[in-house]
Structures are given as C-alpha cells and as structure tokens.
C-alpha cells in the first residue's frame, strides 16, 4: 500500500513539475504601434487553394490585402501569386502610390512593393516554375539587396535548384544587407513528419540548410505560415538584427491558404 502511494505521489509530482515548468509563449507576430524598427518586411502568398492546383489572387480580395498592409505599416512587401502587372498596379494604386517591381513570365507572379526609397538593378530571373525578382533597394542611406521568390509546390528537385540558385545569386551581391523572402514551399519543422507533402523530404532538408548556411531564418520557431499546419513562407536576411517576427493569423480571407509573415529588422 505504501509503495502504491509513493508511486502515485511521484507521478503527480512529475506531472505537476512538467506542467508548471512549461512556458506558454505567444509565438505569432503581434502588431503594436509602440514597436520601433528600421525596416518592417512582409511576405505573403496571396493565392488561393481552390481548384486542382490552386489559383492566383482574386480581385475581390485586393481591398482586404491592402487594408492589412496599411494596418501593418511595412516598408517592403513581397507578394506571391499575383495574376499579372495590372493586379500589382491595382494594389499600388490602393496603397496610394507604393512602387513595385514584378517578375516576368506567366501568371502567378512575384512582386516586391516598397513605400519609401528607390530601387536599382531590378532583374527578373528565369527559373522553374516561375521567375524570381532581385533588386537593390536604397533606403535611409543604406542599400539592401532584395530577392522575392516563389518555389515549386510539387517538386523538391525544382525547389532545390531555384532556392539554391537564388541563394547564390543574392550572396554574390556586394551589399551588406540582404533579404530573401517568399513562399519556398519547404517545411522541415521538428515536431512532425513531412513526407506526406513532399516528394523528397531529404532534398527539402538540404535545400533549407543551404539557404540557412548563408542567411538567418528570421522567423524561426514562430509557428506555421500556411494551411494545414505547415511552415512554407520564410524571410531570410543577413546583416540585420532581428527585433521580432512571425506569421499573423486571422487576416487571410476567402480560399487563401497562407498567412502573411512579418519581421522587424534593425540595421546592424
């Protein structure tokens, strides 16, 4: 009888200890006007999940996206899955004159929007399955190299090629500050199996680690960015101090399956 009491006591003590020592932390990004930073960056895949292979941004969702962007007060926005240049122009108009560059190629294009400063050396680089964009952004007397990317959702090999190529292209820039952002379609979180979604999980691990070798994953451990429970959207950066960042939940609308991911950066 005594032994049984001891065993139950030990079980209760261990359970109590593990429960009280676990820290409940808010991982997701929470906007506050009190936040101070040099640069706020957003990446957002605004496409939808309807149909066999999803769809690009629907026009009726643009006001919602614009309102979200306005409320977050970013400096740079990377958007993926725009129908074309005219849609980027529409967003720019509703944001009251934000400028942008947009990738060439077929629909579901990648674009970079910016409020202040100016851009030079913008290029749309062909890749499979779609172009990515790279440019130099001049802001507050500093130059930041930006690269916006949307990797293949269905082929780990294509993801590996385009992300590796984009990483090398950005690395070769002589600027101190660099940002690579977009929907990389790579999910390698620790707490779950991913082979249900990838045709080559090992290759995805290698792809992520190749980018992480040269740039900091600024929103690491901040939660999932896409449905269902997947972390696919990244903001990699180098040269900056990361203040805070993470996905913002409950702003996606309609059939969108990605949350916007935000990071606040300071120049080192």
């Amino acid at each position, binding site marked *: 009888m005594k032994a049984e009491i001891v065993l139950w006591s030990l079980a209760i003590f261990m359970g109590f200890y593990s429960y009280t020592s676990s820290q409940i932390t808010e991982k997701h990004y929470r906007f506050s006007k009190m936040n101070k930073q040099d640069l706020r960056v957003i990446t957002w895949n605004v496409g939808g999940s309807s149909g066999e292979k999803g769809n690009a941004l629907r026009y009726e969702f643009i006001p919602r996206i614009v309102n979200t962007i306005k409320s977050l007060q970013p400096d740079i926005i990377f958007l993926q899955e725009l129908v074309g240049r005219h849609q980027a122009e529409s967003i720019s108009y509703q944001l009251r004159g934000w400028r942008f560059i947009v990738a060439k190629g077929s629909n579901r294009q990648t674009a970079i929007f910016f409020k202040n400063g100016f851009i030079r050396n913008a290029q749309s680089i062909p890749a499979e399955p779609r172009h990515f964009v790279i440019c130099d952004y001049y802001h507050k007397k500093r130059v930041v190299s930006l690269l916006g990317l949307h990797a293949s959702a269905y082929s780990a090999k294509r993801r590996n090629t385009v*992300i590796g190529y984009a990483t090398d292209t950005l690395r070769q820039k002589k600027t101190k500050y660099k940002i690579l952002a977009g929907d990389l379609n790579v999910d390698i979180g620790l707490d779950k199996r991913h082979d249900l979604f990838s045709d080559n999980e090992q290759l995805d691990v*290698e792809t992520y680690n*190749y980018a992480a070798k040269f740039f900091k994953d600024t929103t690491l451990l901040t939660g999932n960015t896409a449905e269902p429970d997947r972390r696919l959207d990244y903001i990699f950066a180098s040269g900056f101090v990361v203040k805070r960042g993470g996905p913002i939940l409950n702003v996606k609308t309609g059939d969108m399956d990605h949350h916007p991911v935000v990071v606040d950066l300071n120049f080192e």
Partner: protein
Amino acid sequence: MICKFEYHKLKRSHRPFYSMLSIILYLFFILFGFYTYAQTQTGGQVNFRYTFENRSYFNGLTFALYAFYFAVMMVLPIFAATEGGAQVAGETHNRTLYLMLARPLSRSQIFFSKLFVSFSYLFFLVGYLLAFALLTGLVFVGWGTLNLYPGVLQMSHVHQSLSQSEALNSFACAWVLASVALSAPLALSFLLSTWIRNPLNAVSTSIALYLILYVMSEIHFFVKLRPYFFTSYMGFWREAFREEILWGQIFQDGAKILAFTFVFLALAYRRFRLREEI
C-alpha cells in the same frame, strides 16, 4: 537476494543474448545503408544539387547518432516491451509465481525486484548499443566533428556543430536520458503483464500498443492528441546534442515521461497487489 534470483532468471532465459545478437545485426544493416548512401551522395553520382552533405559530414559519430536514434525510437522499445511483458505474466503462465509467493517475500519485494532488474538490463542494453555503435563508427568510418542540421532526424532547429569531445559527452548524457525514455514502454508492458496471464499476449499487446502510439505521435494529423501520448516525449534525449544544452527543457520532458512511467507502475502494482492467484 531476490534481485540476484531475478538476475539469474534473466540470464537463463537467454533473452540478453538474443537481444545483443539482434543489436549487432541491426548495426550491421545500418552501417551497410550508411556506407552505400554516403558513397552515392558524395561519390559524384548525384547531379547538380545544393547540399550540406559531404565526406566529412558522414563520419562515425553521425553513424552512431543515426543508429542510436532509430534504435531508441523503434528497436529498444520492443526489447523493453518484451522484457516487461515477460515478467509477471511469464511467472503466472509457468506457475512459478505460486512458488515465489509461498516464500516469505512480500508482493512489493517481488514486483520491485523484477522492475529493478528489468530496468537495469534495459540500461545496460542502451549502453551496449551506444558503445557498439560508437566503436563500429570509429573502426569503419572514423570519428570527427558532429554536425547536426535542421530537419535531419528532427534534432535541432539551427545548425549545431559539436567537437568530438562535446559529442561524446552528449552521447553519455543521451545514454541516461534514453534509458529514462524507455522506462515508459517498460512500465506499460509491466502493467499489461499484470493483467494478461499469457506472456505471449502481454508482449504482443505491449508492442502493438507502443507502435500505435508511436505512429500517432509522428503523424501531425493527431496534433491535438499528441500531448497525451508518452511516445511524443520519447525523443527528449535529443536535446543533449546541442552546443548549449537546454537542461530546463530536458527536465521538463523527462518529468513528463516519468509521470507516465509512475502512473503505469502504480496501476501495475495495484493490480499485482490485489489480484488473486488461481
């Protein structure tokens, strides 16, 4: 005295011999797979690819870690289930439990001596596997720096580079922590062993239950249920492989595993104490 008696019974059962033989076979297969994979990945047979894998990555310490990881998650729990399941149910089935109870021994002495010997045996088996894996790695591949990348074996969120001595210290910690992790499937099989009188049924049910819980804790569809499975915390020993070990996290997950272990043991002991031998 009773522990010595249990030790002799374990020795005579030949289970340690077969377990050690199985571990050697397991390590042979892992070594074969590791060697052929490393050759394919670094021998120029892979087309253009952005990767971290190279000849220095595939060293003896990486081999030992791969072998240890899969052993603790999938091989050793089966040995634990076999050992625990065979204890009380085995004695009941062979009708030797009557003889033990006829002696001036309390039920708690019998129960805890069986538990102590089983756990000690499991602790030895984990150490044996780890030592053999490290030795095999040293002889056939050679040691070096242990590099852990995010996504590989779900070990770390950021790249960890452990020097040889740091890695060996981590392996030593992992030995103890993995043994603690394996105490939960051992306790579960003890519980089943007190309920089921046939050892074959007790062992097979323990293994089946472990595999079901393991699969459910691995697939993210069951994300809401995961906190209630001890298998979700079985890999907590992986935290030892860090440049800066987060002991708080280790104690927290270790406490969860031990909570499950003590609940199973308390239930098992209660059943053993109250049940009638017929």
